[in-house]
């Protein structure tokens, strides 16, 4: 059993890992093809994995609703959102399936109109107007809003943490202050020094440190990759030494 649970996965990782490390150096057509194929496979796998995610999320909220835990009502909204998005998104496909099954359907009136046509009628590409509408008026605003909360967070973070507690903190503070000021269009009026100095910091010390990090990181990632390929690190297989 151990053989199936541990050895085979490690073997798979070893083979795929080793090959795709080497593949980079093999210009032959078949080698490039292998890369292209494998990458498509990963996408497909991710697609399957979505089923797991979907289950986890739905299961959790279903339990909440079932057990009437405080605030279970909110969980209903998850389903509302999910089903609406799915309906608007997949209606085109559903219709195709229908027509394959029961032949062409007249969507000019009645239920058929309500379900398949209507104001959310789907257009070529399978996406319905309703889908785009949902995207423009729920998804997109919500996303942009959450993102824009960063503006507040960055302000409060700056206020809370930019304090010259230690020398390091002071250096960070000064660098931040200079670059911030250099970025303000007004600083150009005070003196050209500020914008150009900000750029200098970005282009020299900033970049130097970044390169250092980058080099270190690349070594770290190479080492990790090797540990994975040679089965030394196997937490992703559920740890075990």
């Amino acid at each position, binding site marked *: 059993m151990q053989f199936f649970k541990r050895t085979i996965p490690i073997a798979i990782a070893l083979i795929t890992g080793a090959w795709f490390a080497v593949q980079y150096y093999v210009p032959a057509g078949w080698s490039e093809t292998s890369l292209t194929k494998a990458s498509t496979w990963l996408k497909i796998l991710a697609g399957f*994995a979505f089923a797991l995610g979907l289950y986890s999320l739905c299961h959790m909220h279903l339990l909440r609703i079932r057990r009437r835990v405080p605030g279970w009502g909110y969980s209903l909204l998850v389903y509302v959102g999910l089903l609406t998005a799915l309906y608007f998104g997949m209606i085109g496909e559903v219709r195709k399936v229908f027509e394959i099954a029961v032949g062409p359907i007249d969507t000019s009136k009645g239920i058929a109109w309500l379900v398949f046509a209507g104001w959310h009628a789907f257009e070529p590409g399978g996406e319905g107007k309703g889908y785009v509408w949902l995207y423009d008026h729920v998804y997109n605003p919500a996303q942009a809003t959450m993102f824009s909360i960063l503006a507040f967070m960055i302000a409060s973070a700056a206020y809370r943490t930019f304090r010259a507690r230690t020398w390091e903190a002071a250096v*960070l503070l000064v660098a931040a202050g200079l670059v911030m000021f250099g970025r303000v269009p007004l600083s150009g009026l005070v003196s050209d020094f500020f914008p150009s100095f900000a750029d200098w910091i970005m282009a020299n010390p900033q970049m130097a440190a970044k390169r250092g990090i980058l080099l270190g990181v690349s070594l770290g990632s190479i*080492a990790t990759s090797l540990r994975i390929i040679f089965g030394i690190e196997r937490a992703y297989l559920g*740890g075990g030494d």
Partner: protein
Amino acid sequence: MRGLSSHSRALGFGLGLGLGLGLALAPAARAAEPAPLPKPGWFKAFDTPNDAGQKISAEWAGAEDERVEAKYVLSISTRKTGPFAEAFRGPSTTSLKVEDTATFGPWTGGDAKAHHVAVSPLATYRTQTLAALALDDGPKANATATVAMLLRLPKRLQWLHLFGKETLDRARRTLADAKVKRVADLEAEGVQDVEKDLAAIILDRPFYVTLEVVEGERREPVGDVQEARARDNAFNWKKLNNFLAMLFFGGAVLGMIRRARSNPDMYLRRIGGLEAVDEALGRATEMGKPVLFAHGLETMANISTIAAVNVLGEVTKRVAKFDTKMICVNNDPVVFAVSQETVKEAYLHAGRPDAYNADDVIFVAAEQFSYVAAVSGIMMRQQPAANIYMGYFYAESLLLAETGASTGAIQIAGTDSYTQLPFFITTCDYTLMGEELYAASAYLSRNPMLLGSLKGQDIGKAALMAIVLVGTLLSTVGIEWVTKLIEVYT
């Protein structure tokens, strides 16, 4: 009002002027006294190195009085006797081999005057009839491949055409219009994968190459017809330095791991962020509050995520030991599944399989900002005593860390996404910077083999430092070869 469309008139005028000049200049160029054509000493053709067998290289010696007007013309054919199709035409002063690092990388050879051109039969034959391409004296395989292509069937089914009268008739019929059809025509008809099939035909088939010097009406052949086959190359020599680097780093890491097996106890500098993990867990246990673990957004194929999962394993073992509760929030389904497995096994490993609860590893949301919203919500409602962020983060880093800070949790972050490092550094209590993330699992597990790999990384870093310092020194005093070593060719 009419001024509105002035720009277009100005354009027209400019155009007219341009043409006028062109006409004026052309005769002047032709009036030059005919000088003797350049005569290259030798000319050879061979498979273009470092490629996927789709190109043929022609190389010839430089000649006296090469000039822009005199052009080199390469033609290729599938027959020794032609007909030949022009594949390249360029001024005799250009296409020097030493400049062609695109083909050879650093190995452009010593001869400073030699010329090199890699011609692509495929590109050439797009304009030729298919008959001209593959149906004459080539190996049978190629002929059938062409038939397959014309029948729009994949090559793996070629052999079918060797049977069955009906198919053969269709083949003959298609071959007939192959005499007139061109690749471009087929594509225009919407035939799929024409180029793929053509590639298969070109691979390993003999092509015949001629070189001519042309100036105005005069043209002179150079040497005699050369034969060459385009082959699938097994190694891209342009990437040799990359390969050696991999061997070196790999060797260092693996070697050190081996050594760590024999003498496990090695010095390891303190990493504050990781020392703090136990403290954080302890605090969580006292307060009877959960610990929150968040991966970044990246997929499971991303090394930082893999590192994060390794950390998750170690952290979970401790969580199990402390007998506190952990919530692991995910955004990528694969990462989610892997984390579930990891956590489960970690509990098992710590001898607390009972304590494992599948619902502690949650797939909170499928998309970046709904993930942020959900996780912030969890932070607010469950008030975790400690938040651990490990992996590759994007804009959500500050949102999570700042919300976490407002709930008064101890926050430990680790990421190699240096865009987000500044935010973690400022808002978290402890931050693992870049490489330290990869060291984390080793540091926590104290597994000698993993520690060994850290030593390996250090050797790598030492090497890099040496290269940077020595290299700069050498290049400053004018010795350039070091910089050549680290050139990246593709």
